[in-house]
């Protein structure tokens, strides 16, 4: 059974904060709830960005998600 939206957001944030890589593709969050539809996972991740708990990281051609503070700009690399 699919998680509730709040549970899904909590699972996504947990993964974003603990994954070895600071930036994750949206598909990497699908495993947080195998029963959820990809769009629901995307919407939950986007909500976390709106709430200021996650950031988008974009190379220009690809976009990834990162827990707030984990991703770095190219400026700092």
């Amino acid at each position, binding site marked *: 059974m699919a998680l509730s939206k709040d549970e899904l957001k909590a699972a996504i944030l947990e993964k974003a904060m603990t994954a070895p890589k600071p930036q994750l593709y949206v598909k990497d969050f699908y495993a947080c709830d195998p029963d959820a539809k990809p*769009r629901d996972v995307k919407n939950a991740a986007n909500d976390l960005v709106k709430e200021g708990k996650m950031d988008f990281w*974009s190379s*220009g051609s*690809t*976009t990834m998600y990162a827990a707030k503070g984990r991703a770095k700009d190219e*400026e700092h690399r």
Partner: protein
Amino acid sequence: MPKHDTPLLDELEKGPWPSFVTDLKRQAEKKPECFDILGQLELSFKDKITHWKHGGIVGVFGYGGGIVGRYSDVPERFPGVAHFHTVRLNQPSSKFYSSAKLRDICNLWEKYGSGMTNMHGSTGDLVLLGTTTPNLEPLFYELTHDLNQDLGGSGSNLRTPECCLGRARCEWGCYDTQDLCHTLTMHYQDEIHRPAFPYKFKFKFSGCPNDCVAAIARSDFAVIGTWRDDIRIDQAAVKGYITGEFAPNAGAHSGKDWGKFDIKKEVLDLCPTECMWMEGDTLKIDNSECTRCMHCINVMPRALRPGKQQGATICVGAKAPILDGAQFATMTIPFIEVKKNEDGEFAEVVEVIEKIWDWWMEVGKNRERVGETIMRVGLPTFLKVMEVTPAPQHVKEPRSNPYVFWQADEVEGGWDRDVKEFRKRNAQ
């Protein structure tokens, strides 16, 4: 910011062509950071490597696209371009601007950016080149509130949809490209601004098979106008071309004397399926063999027109990357009527799009375009997902189509049949 010596770039100002180097030097009088663009580019020419880094968490609040972070890797030498982010603006359908709108955009960009633009990016966006992180939010606020203009797509988003001039300027438009482009842009605002996909996804809309926006070569989802009845022929106008009353190609190649128009040489013999011939003074077309190449219609626009039953063909999976191989789109839906329903939506087109997305979001690998996913799993699998019955037109050519994989239930006896028995029969 000081001027830099740019002997290599100065070479690009020689010759009869307009030069971006001259433009940058002129702009640098107002915006000194443009001297640093020139300096850094000169250094790149010497070092034979780019000195731009791109990517990061730059953007405007709530948007996961539209801004591409760009930084110099030699900021101490060129501080004016230490941050030099790119901003993509969603262009109006067919790029119809008023001059007042262009002035407003340029004025805003002079205020918040370098003033340098790229008209237009390959996705059709108006590209504003070079601003700093603190300027992004104020720029975005004025752009959206004062100019009623939005950002375009970047990253793993739906990219800014693009269309040809369509029926606004062209008699061959088989559907209203501008309407479809604008309606889908509004319908999919979330997908344009917030990353949803394994990788980028592009829509392009061409009104006829001339495909002026190169949708079949560049877009994941190409909607190309077509017709399914017969090409309309005005036999009197055909005679007019033969007698020289009308200039072929609407006079497009009239700068040189090509001699008398020869319908056999210039039209009939160039038909790729050889489906045209003359019977006396009458032009005949075997429309069942026509592949919509548009050559005859382009050469004799007064005499030939697309048929009356108009709609579009949907091709899926093109890409034109800098690295790795370019790929043409695969014809998936041979014909679809492009009509709005009572809710003002192109429901049939939306249904096709969302079938593709639902499947690709699930099955596509990270950084895999939908065309690559189709190549990986095979066209028959994709056609099953799309609930499309395979047709001969889906096959590139017999026995060499890399997509075709038989399923056990499609073969008599499945995989368990007696091969020796089969060979015996086959040998007879």
